[in-house]
């Protein structure tokens, strides 16, 4: 195939999108480290906040690149859908940054509390969310509908862990009022993780839109009826 200008433009959009994606993966792995190693260094929070700022800047940069591409290339078909999807996902990734920052604020106090039996659930949730974010971005870049579907299915797992944690924390707080603060922090952290998983699910759903012009696997299958 010949070297097309639109392809170079799209490559540039992809590159900027990947930069945003890797910043989000980066902020998540910082949080994951803090939770797993249970060490909050003096500059830990600062590093997270710094990364969140970079995410905001990259979000703005990505939108600018997309806007310019639309103006210059007037893309159609899958090219148009891809750029529209990137513009929407930019907002999702930016929100993931905000939620990661929220979690970082919570971690500081959380690590001062005694350990409880839901700590393992938080770690599990963090792992699931990291996988979903990484995989949804990969599925989007590869326009891989099947991989996107796996991310979408995984959202339920995260919801279930949250529901389970909620009841565990409630019991824990009822039994020992000393643990109320810990329990609240844990639930709030879990809630933020669950929101990140929702955003990753949005990323996965955009894959269907880009590839098929439909929002979900269901309508994609319905197309063949």
């Amino acid at each position: 195939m010949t070297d097309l200008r639109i392809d170079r433009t799209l490559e540039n959009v992809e590159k900027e999108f990947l930069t945003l994606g890797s910043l989000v993966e980066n902020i998540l792995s910082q949080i994951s480290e803090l939770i797993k190693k249970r060490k909050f260094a003096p500059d830990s929070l600062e590093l997270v906040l710094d990364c969140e700022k970079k995410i905001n800047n990259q979000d703005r940069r990505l939108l600018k690149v997309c806007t310019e591409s639309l103006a210059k290339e007037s893309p159609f078909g899958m090219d148009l859908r891809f750029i529209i999807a990137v513009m929407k996902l930019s907002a999702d990734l930016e929100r993931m940054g905000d939620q990661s920052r929220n979690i970082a604020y919570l971690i500081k106090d959380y690590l001062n509390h005694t350990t409880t039996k839901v700590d393992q659930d938080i770690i599990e949730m963090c792992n699931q969310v990291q996988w979903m974010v990484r995989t949804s971005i990969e599925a989007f870049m590869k326009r891989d509908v099947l991989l996107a579907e796996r991310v979408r299915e995984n959202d339920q797992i995260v919801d279930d862990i949250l529901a389970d944690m909620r009841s565990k924390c409630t019991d824990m707080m009822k039994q020992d009022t000393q643990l109320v603060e810990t329990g609240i922090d844990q639930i709030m952290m879990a809630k933020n993780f669950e929101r990140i998983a929702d955003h990753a699910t949005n990323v996965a759903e955009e894959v269907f839109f880009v590839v098929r012009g439909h929002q979900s696997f269901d309508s994609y299958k319905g197309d063949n009826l």
Partner: protein
Amino acid sequence: MKQVVEVKGVSAWFGSLHVLKEVSFSVHENEVVALIGPSGCGKSTLIRCLNRLHEEVQDAKISGQVFLEGQNIYGPNVDAVTIRRRVGMVFQKPNPFPGLSIFDNVAIGLKLAGVHNKAILQERVEECLMKAALWGEVKDKLKNPGLSLSGGQQQRLCIARALAVSPPVLLMDEPTSALDPLSTASIEELIAQLKKTVTIIIVTHNMQQAARISDKTAFMLNGELVEYGRTTEIFTQPRMEQTERYITGRFG
């Protein structure tokens, strides 16, 4: 909505060259339909089949049916000249009649159709020039030659001429490809106005133009109609792989 044009299994040849293959589609009242596709795919031939111009070429052949407001224009005893009066045509290069004034360029169609009353002619010419968004620019120089106008104005004059006999359908074959962006914009604006009273089928190789001005788009390839549908869908989520490749500029 009323079906104004219905094309049923139309095939066309130039000698032994088979250039249209079983093309079928229909166009409703007040619709603008854009025909797109690579050069040589048969767009011009297709619209020339809609007003019986194709048969004017030596050794040209056509089969199938074309219904104009319910009447098969290839039926027995149908007069090609009458059909051409009901299906106006505007070409790529503006072609005002040389030697005729602006006024007469528009009036001539009416005169040929038997209108000779001066007052009526005056009124109809003014009305058509207005419809073609040209009146304001020419009302003080109606006696000047049509060819004295700019390219964009000449094209609008040709549109006014086509409108003079009130055709239900107007065919346009790349009507803006020889015009500058400003004249192009005014023709596009005009099309949006005209569609209230005329059904328009327009060939264009400018994809943005097709997207801007048409309600439906037909994509042709090698004499076949690959996909026909709402313009918004054709340009955002076409069903056929070939259409997707063409509209995203990845053809061939």
